[in-house]
Structures are given as structure tokens and as C-alpha cells.
């Protein structure tokens, strides 16, 4: 509920191909940065939520990966897994724990070590026959192709998203892919799953991010520039959109519904949002997200980026961090990493990437594709 929970500290590791770093090391780095940022002793944490798609090698499937890494014992720790919305959903669960009155101070941590899981994209789970042959880019590509067919959009519009997000990410010391790209380079890259070329796809990344939440009325004890949680929403639709004859493939209802919940709680409209970290797992996804989140009409997401309105100096900067595209996408960590960026921006600590005078920041994940979406709205104090 609006303004009942505040973020008092955040932490984030460098994202990248962290072949020499372990899952536990990532957790510690993110958590202790957040503890220091909040000025809090780990012993004050009353509950923790671990957002992770694939827990660490010694943690089985449970939340003990987090407990063991931090030696955080004797308190409730829960693992949250909700496809690519894992990180933001873990954050949402942290909010619920505080709002319920059960806890005053909660740790939310997202961590993922994709590079320890072998090379080729993500490991596949699921039915041995149905939908066999799907890949993460392949699934989003189904939507992109239908969207581009319907609205007559070309790949060069997708490329503009990559160019913008790499520009931002190149200015972010913690980003995975810190280089700018040209439209030409994006268009000439090898095709991964049509219409997506290599630079239309986010990388598979290692990383962790953490946030310390506390009761808003206690937040002043820790810092003056705490960040109040204004609203959140989570919506689930079918995890098999490719079997749904009523699905138009032009956007994701889960995002629209999650956004509606979050805006309602925050008492805000899309126009009130100063900037947003949206789930740009693929370039097309960002275009569709900006529509589903209400920043423009359906079919206008391409123009939004083409006109520069989503760049750092635009009227609705999208992914000032560099996004999943450039910052990287360690699945469970991404949502919490977005919270990290929103907090830093709202505190005016965005450095070279600082957006102008932000009032409300929005973080958004969508996974499945389209099966689940989570939206978080944070404000400045």
C-alpha cells in the first residue's frame, strides 16, 4: 500500500560473465553493499526474500542459498520464483511482509549465476513434447514478428532500442556490455531467432542486487533520502500464450494488468512517471512494454524511441541503466537491479545517466513471455 514501505539501502554487483565468482560471493557483495548503504547490521534483518530462477549449486531449490551465503539464520527466508518477474516479485513479497505488520526490516535479494549453467542461453525445462523447440528469443520473436507484420514495422526500429540502451549502459560502471553500438552494427549482426539479431537480445549474465526495506515510519532512523514504495502490481496470464487462440501477440496483458494495479495504488497515471526501467530482454519487448505501461498508444512504441523521447534527455527516459540489453539479465537479479537503479536515480545519484528531476520511477518485469508481469513504482522523499 502506498507509502507504507521504504527502501533504505540498495546494493548491486558488477554484472557480467563472472566466471571466477561464485553464487555465494555475488549474494554477499550485493547484500553487504546494501547493509552499508542502509547503515544497518545484518542482525537487524527480520525476514528475507531470495529472488532466483535457479538457486546456487549447494542450495537445492530452497531459500537456504541465501541463508548460507550470509549466515543469516533463525529468521524466515523465502525463495520467490516467477519467471523473469522473479526479482520484482521478491520485492513485492518483501513489501507485503512489512505491510502485514509481521516485520519491520526485510532484505530482498535477487541473484543469478547463469554462466555456471553451461553455454547456450538458458537451460530448458518443461514438457518433453509440447512447445519443444522454444527458446527465450524464439518465444519473444513470435510476438515481435506478429507485431511487425501488423504494424508494418522493420528491424531498424528494433535497432534504435539497442543503440539507446547501449548508449546508457556504456555510461554505467556496473553494466555487463559497456559499449555503444551503431544501428548498422545491430542490423548486420547474426540472426539469433528472426527478427532478432545478436544485438536485439540481452546477454545471459551473472549478477546480484539487494534492497533493504523497512516500515516507512521507521525509515528516517536510517536515512533522510529513503525511497517510499508508491505502488506495485503483479498479474499472471497463461504461460502458454502460443496455445491461446484469442491472443493477438501485440503486447502482454499481464503487463497491462500489473501496471493498472500499481498505478491505482500509487494514485498515479503513466504521465506522472519520470522514468522507467522496463524489461527489454529483447529490443521489441521494450517497444511493446512502453505501450503496455501506458506511455504511448499501442503501435506507437517504435515512434517513441525513434523520436528520442525514451533517451536520457527525453520526456520519458526508458532504461537509463542500460536495461537488460546492456546491463545484462541475470533473471532473478534483474528486477532488484531495476529497483537499485530507480533508487539511485530518485536519490540523484545517477551520475552521467542521471535523469532530470525525477519524481516517480517505475520498474517492470515481464516473463513467460507474457505469463507474468510485475510493476513497482517508487517515489522520492
Amino acid at each position, binding site marked *: 500500500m502506498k507509502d507504507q514501505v521504504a527502501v533504505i539501502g540498495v546494493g548491486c554487483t558488477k554484472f557480467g560473465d563472472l566466471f571466477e565468482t561464485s553464487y555465494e560471493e555475488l549474494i554477499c557483495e550485493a547484500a553487504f553493499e546494501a547493509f552499508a548503504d542502509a547503515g544497518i547490521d545484518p542482525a537487524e534483518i527480520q525476514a528475507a526474500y531470495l529472488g532466483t530462477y535457479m538457486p546456487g549449486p549447494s542450495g537445492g531449490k530452497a531459500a537456504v542459498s541465501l541463508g548460507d551465503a550470509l549466515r543469516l539464520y533463525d529468521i524466515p527466508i523465502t525463495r520467490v520464483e516467477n519467471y523473469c518477474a522473479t526479482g520484482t516479485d521478491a520485492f513485492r513479497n518483501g513489501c507485503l511482509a512489512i505491510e502485514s505488520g509481521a516485520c519491520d526490516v526485510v532484505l530482498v535479494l535477487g541473484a543469478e549465476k547463469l554462466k555456471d549453467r553451461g553455454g547456450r542461453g538458458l537451460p530448458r525445462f518443461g514438457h*518433453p*513434447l*509440447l512447445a*519443444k523447440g522454444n527458446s527465450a528469443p524464439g518465444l519473444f520473436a513470435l510476438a515481435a*514478428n*506478429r507485431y511487425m507484420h501488423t504494424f508494418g514495422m522493420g528491424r531498424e526500429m528494433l535497432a534504435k532500442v539497442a543503440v539507446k540502451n547501449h548508449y546508457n549502459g556504456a555510461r554505467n560502471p556496473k553494466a555487463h556490455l559497456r559499449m555503444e553500438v551503431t544501428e548498422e552494427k545491430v542490423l548486420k549482426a547474426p540472426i539469433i*531467432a528472426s527478427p532478432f539479431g545478436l544485438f536485439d537480445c540481452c546477454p545471459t549474465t551473472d549478477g546480484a542486487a539487494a534492497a533493504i526495506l523497512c516500515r516507512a515510519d521507521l525509515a528516517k532512523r536510517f536515512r533522510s533520502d529513503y525511497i517510499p514504495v508508491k505502488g506495485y502490481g503483479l498479474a499472471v496470464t497463461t504461460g502458454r500464450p502460443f496455445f491461446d*487462440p484469442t491472443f493477438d501477440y501485440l503486447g502482454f496483458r499481464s503487463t497491462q494488468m500489473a501496471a493498472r494495479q500499481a498505478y491505482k495504488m500509487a494514485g498515479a497515471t503513466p504521465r506522472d512517471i519520470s522514468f522507467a526501467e522496463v524489461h527489454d530482454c529483447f529490443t521489441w519487448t521494450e517497444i511493446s512494454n512502453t505501450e503496455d505501461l501506458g506511455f504511448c498508444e499501442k503501435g506507437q512504441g517504435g515512434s517513441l524511441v525513434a523520436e528520442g523521447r525514451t533517451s536520457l534527455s527525453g520526456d520519458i527516459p526508458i532504461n537509463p541503466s542500460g536495461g537488460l540489453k546492456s546491463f545484462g539479465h541475470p533473471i532473478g537479479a534483474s528486477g532488484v537491479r531495476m529497483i537499485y537503479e530507480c533508487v539511485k536515480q530518485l536519490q540523484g545519484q545517477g551520475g552521467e545517466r542521471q535523469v532530470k528531476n525525477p519524481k516517480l520511477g517505475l520498474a517492470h518485469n515481464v516473463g513467460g513471455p507474457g505469463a507474468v508481469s510485475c510493476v513497482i513504482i517508487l517515489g522520492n522523499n
Partner: protein
Amino acid sequence: MVGIAAYSVYLPRYRLERSKIAAAWGTSQSSGEVAVANYDEDALTMAIEAATGCFTDSDVSLLDGFYFASTSAPYREKQMASVAATACDLPRRCHTSDFCGSSRASLSALLAGFYALRAGALRSVVVAAGETRVAQPESEMEGLLGDAAAALRLGTEDLVAEFVDATSVSEEFTHFWRTDEQRFVQAFPGKFSNTYGYNKDLGEAIRILLERQKLEPGSVARLALYSPDARAAADLARELGFDPKRQLISPPVAAIGSAGAADALLALAIALEEAKPGDLIIVGAYGEGADALLLRATEAVTAYRPRRTWKQWLEAKLMLSSYEKYLKYRRVVEIDEAGEAINNVLEFKELRQDVRLYGSRCGACGLVQYPMAQVCLQCKARAGLTDHKLSKQGTIFTFTIDNLIANLEHPLPMAVVDLEGGGRVYLQVTDFSESEVTVGATVGLTFRRLHEGGGNHNYFWKARPLR
């Protein structure tokens, strides 16, 4: 009266030029091409393709027999006819059997079907033959063997041809063989085997048939024969007093290769496609003896339209880019295939959904949905969902051509397909050229080897552009 109610053939889409085989080994091969089954095809899947061309959904409930014939079945132990009958959604009360051993297997199956019908034991039987025989690399045989399938529906009414008579001779003769330990077809080809095997055995069977029916070769319209090589059938026809040019029909070895047990049915199907009412047709096959059957075309033969003509099958081809692809498709070069075991409990539980391809139809809102649903996807009704057999044809709503996913062949297109009559499926696309995979393209569904795993071939439906 018993006879043939429907016929259908299947040719895989790929052709390999013999010159590519010759170039690979520095040997010589005759000109022309061999038909090559795709990497996800085998004798079973091709037989199913052929079989589905000879009945409609309304015929299926009347079928009570399915015979599968092949010398290159994908299993040594596991009945293929039953798998095929399930994929074709035949009733459970069905007599199924596999026929194997030699190129004669298809006519052995055909005879068994006719005899069962004549005895009144069965009502309507499908006989389907498919072959993907593999020759020793670098051997002459490599340019001879081709892949194909054909099927017939036998019955007692609405016949295109009536079964008249048959003769068989059987005696051990070593011409083609493969022991239980051999991978590649062995042969003792040439003049000796043709003279003392093929000509002697099949010649004898046909002569007896002609004698018994008091027929002269000239009164037979078509002689439809399996041929062990490109010339043997013509030599035999001439020796028996037939005019090969006018009367002989034998699958074109030069254009597609020799497809073993499928060949006799293929020849018969081509003969029926050209037949006029009253035409007498002799179909013959060979292998450790021979079978010859006499059929008479009915009035209905001219009205019968196969799903595609033989000429269309021959023309709708794609050229295989290399000989190495062929070696990969037939698993001659060993490649570790990404796969996973299919839990047999899951297979059992989902047979109707995954193999017979049923979805659900909501009684309340009418939405057809796949996979089978407990609660309607659209109106959320809990009650009133009924099993709904999905159509095997539809249009691509959207797609991608994926280079990332691990698969034996790349790239792998995946398509979301809206089926005629409702239901949306999401399938791998096969037998394609990239320009055919577009939004709005019409595709058919085909039962294919999806992946290997757990020491098993795992089959599921794929989409392919309609040719």
C-alpha cells in the same frame, strides 16, 4: 467383392543428386537423384503420411485393420502398425500387424488384408509401406536406394479396383539381405541375381496368374512392378511378353531410387491413377520368392482423386545441399542429439492429446483449445468441455526462425498455427524453405521424430508448408 477403396503415396521432400555421392567418394554413379527422407522422418512416419492420404475423419471409425510393411522399421521390437494406427486415430478395436523381411512385405500385407476381408473377418484395412533403407557408404548401392511410402485402404464397397486373384512362390534366394547385426543393406546385384532370382520367381508368379485367369499379356493394361534396379522390371516385362513402354509401371529408380517394400504399392498407386474402368492390373513384388496380384479397375477409378498426383509429388522437391547432410539425416555420421527421455507414464496419460491430437471444446463459449483443458481458457467454464479432434491443417499466425535452439538441423522454424475448425498449436516446422515460413502461410501437420532420448525415438506433430 473386396478391393481397394483408396490409394495414396508419399515422397519425402529432399532429393540427393547421385553426382554428389560420386564426388564425395571419387567413384562414379549414374545420373539422376534419390529421394531422401528428412532428418525427422523414418519408415514409420512416412507410412503414416501415406496412410492419412487414404481416409478422411469420417472413414476412421470404420477402419478395423492396419498393416505396416517395411524392411527398415525404426524399431526391432515394438509394433509399428499400432503406433501408426494411434497416430491416425484409429479405434482401439483394430487388428494391427507388421510385415517385414523383404521388399515383398507390402504385398504380403496386401494379401493378408484381402484374405481377411474375403473371410469377413475385417471390414476395412489400411496397408501402409515405408522405407528408409541405408546402403554402405561408398558402395554402389548408395545410388540405388531411395526413400518413399505408399498406402492403400482396402474395403468391400466404393472400390476403385477389385481384387481378382493372386499367386505366390517362395524359395530361399540370396539377393538383398541384412542380418540382425548389420546396419547397411547387403546385396548381390547383377545378372545372376536378376536371372535366377527376380526374373525366375516373379516371372513364375505372374505366368501362373496369367494362365489361371486365361489371360494374354496383351489383355493386361498395366504391369506394376517392384524393380531391384533401374532396368530389371523392363527386362522381366519383355521376357513375359509385355510391352514395357506401354504396359510397365515401376517407380522411377532414376528419379527417386528404389524404395524396397514401398515400391510395389507405389507402382500400384501410379497405375491406378492412370487406370480406366475395367483395366486389368498386375502388381508384383519380390524377395525370397514373389507375390503377384491381379486387380480390375472399377467405374469409380476415374472419379478418384488422390490428395496429390504422382507428378506433383515428383515435382515438389527441394535439393539436399550436400552428401554430408544425407549422412547426418540417416545417422550414418554419429552426432550427439540433444534429447530427453519421455516418461512412459506421461506418454500413456497424454496419448489422446499428444498422439491422437485432441484438444478440448468448450460447450459454453465454443472455444477449441489445446492442450486439453480442465477449465475453459476463454470463459472459465469448469463443466461442459469435451474432447475435440483437431484438424491437421491450418495457417501460420506467427513464427520465428530460430538459430539458437539445439536441434539436429538449423535453423529451426517454430510456428504458431491456427487450425481449421479451431485450436491453436505451436510446433516445429519441417520440410521447408525459409521463404515458405510466413504469416498466413498454409501448413499441414505431420507426425515426426521430435527428438531422441532415453534410448527411444520420440514422436510428435510438426508443421510443414503445404506443397
